[in-house]
């Protein structure tokens, strides 16, 4: 590659890097908005995204088992100035979340957790176990045969 070519590549890389680092700056919203998974969650973990322009330090996500939020079952605070939060370990059921920042309240996000059936899980588990057992036996048997052949050859 010529020197001019190298400089062109470096310049292009710098522009891409600049574009990538600055891409988050452009988006801005006018109100506190909370976004969550739209489909039922089959694994018990999901992410909630806070859509807020100013990154205030006191954003808290409230969790309740009812849409009216009569009792708050948990509160979560995002790390640093991140606007996203990952939650996990939820049993099957309905969960309601909203974000609170000082006096502002966000919309309510309804998350449905519906785990896969245990029958489906164990079917795959036993298929995996059987396949693994066959593979291990196969490798051990071939290895032993091979060792025997090498020993016979040396004798």
């Amino acid at each position, binding site marked *: 590659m010529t020197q001019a070519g190298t400089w062109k590549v470096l310049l292009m890389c710098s522009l891409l890097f600049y574009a990538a680092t600055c891409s988050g700056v452009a988006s801005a919203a006018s109100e506190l908005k909370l976004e969550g998974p739209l489909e039922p969650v089959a694994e018990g973990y999901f992410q909630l995204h806070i859509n807020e322009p100013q990154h205030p330090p006191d954003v808290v996500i409230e969790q309740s088992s009812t849409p009216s939020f009569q009792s708050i079952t948990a*509160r979560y605070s995002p790390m640093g100035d991140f606007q996203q939060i*990952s939650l996990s370990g939820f049993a099957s059921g309905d969960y309601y979340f909203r974000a609170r920042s000082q006096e502002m309240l966000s919309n309510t996000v309804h998350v449905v957790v519906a785990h896969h059936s245990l029958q489906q899980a164990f079917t795959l588990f036993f298929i995996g176990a059987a396949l693994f057992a066959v593979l291990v036996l*196969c490798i051990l048997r071939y290895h032993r045969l*091979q060792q025997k052949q090498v020993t016979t050859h040396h004798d």
Partner: protein
Amino acid sequence: MTDVVNQPEFALNSSLGLILVICFGLLWVAFGWYLGRSNKTHEDFALAGRNVGFAFATATAMATWVTSNTTLVAPELTYQFGIWGMVGYSFAALGLILFAPLSARIRQLLPQGYTSGDFIRLRYGPFAWRLFLLISLVYALGWLISLGMAGGILLQALSGLDYHIGMTAILFICVTYTLFGGLKAVIATDFIQALIIIIGIVLVAVLLLEHHGLESVHEQLSSNHPQLLSLLFPAAIMFLFNNIFFGLGEIFHSNVWWSRALAFRKRVAFKAFLLGGVLWLPIPIVAGFIALAAPQLGLFPPSPDMVGPSVAAHVLGSFGALVVFIVVFSALASSLDSLLAATSDLVTRDVYQKHINPTANDKKLLRVSRRSIVLLGLITWLLCLPQIATLGALLNFTGAFVASTIWPIVLGLYNPKLSGRWAAAAMGLGTITGLAMYFLVGFYVAALTACLVSGLCSWLGIYLSNTNFDWATLNEEEQP
């Protein structure tokens, strides 16, 4: 009601994070340059002269497998799948353990071999070889991207430093020292990095237990995140064997491991892989355990792959963050350099020498090898710029590809009846099925289904076969 409000701040400030990256970078680059001075031929550069002893061999086997996958994805999967995630991840050690007998066979069958591609080409012919190369390159790129991303995520979680700066720094450092030192530098740095990783992870776990204990963690999980402690967690049950097959596929097919099997001294490979696997087994348990403390600490990361370093840094303060930084940075570097070196071998040998310039001399191959490292680094960097998925999801996408190679590799090494046509069909159909299941069910079934379909296809091929492969064909003499 559980009130878990707090506002965690970053354990290190951004400037300190950047200074640490620069210091470590200079250290590894200088070391790579020092070790690479004696590389005279392409064989020195690519296979460390085929003369690696037991201690270095064991350390490199273990350290290369302690990747961002272990230090970042093990906590991520524990955070998502609880106890099963932690235990299931540690079963990836079976990949190293079961590769031990295969490595002895590889050393025996291919005394002049360079890459896993060499084996597939000679054993199964050009069509299966090209399909295998495609699978290998998709996997290598997926892993490289995940490592680059992990560098950025690590610094972001510990110091709030912009993701793109951390990612760029780690890629630049690893490309530079692999470029200077080749496999010799990779293996030597792996040895030091393995020591750092073991000491660091044990230190974090001990300090965590001393500061917080198990009871409070268990109490918090039981009341608010019960699935993490449940042994009847459906997705996690599905994940268990999937992760085993993913690990097996990664190791069995990848030139990272084949180049080591070919670089180790004769009779060393079997013992080194076996011991490396046994030593690796407890590491994900320790790394994963710290993720279970996250809810009790009120730590809920923006992305689950940030949970490991975030918890350690939060609990142990600046000192803990420093330890975590050194451990994860070492883990990342030990994998990134190995992968860069092994993939550049594959590109040089299987793509350039066998497809483009068969008469290339040693000097030319060495030059192409170095250029491939730079090119791979650049492609990885470009693909890392957008954070396309979490580390776990990205890695498991490649699981559909690699798990389809398990049976063709195992049967190809021992059973002369499997033909190239059936091996190619096994890899192709296995990959397609795995990818379909990845999107239809979830990432935690891709490798399992790919391996199942590939296995059925391979055994059907043997059952219907009337070929008998001549093993002597594999001992390919190099052109003078």
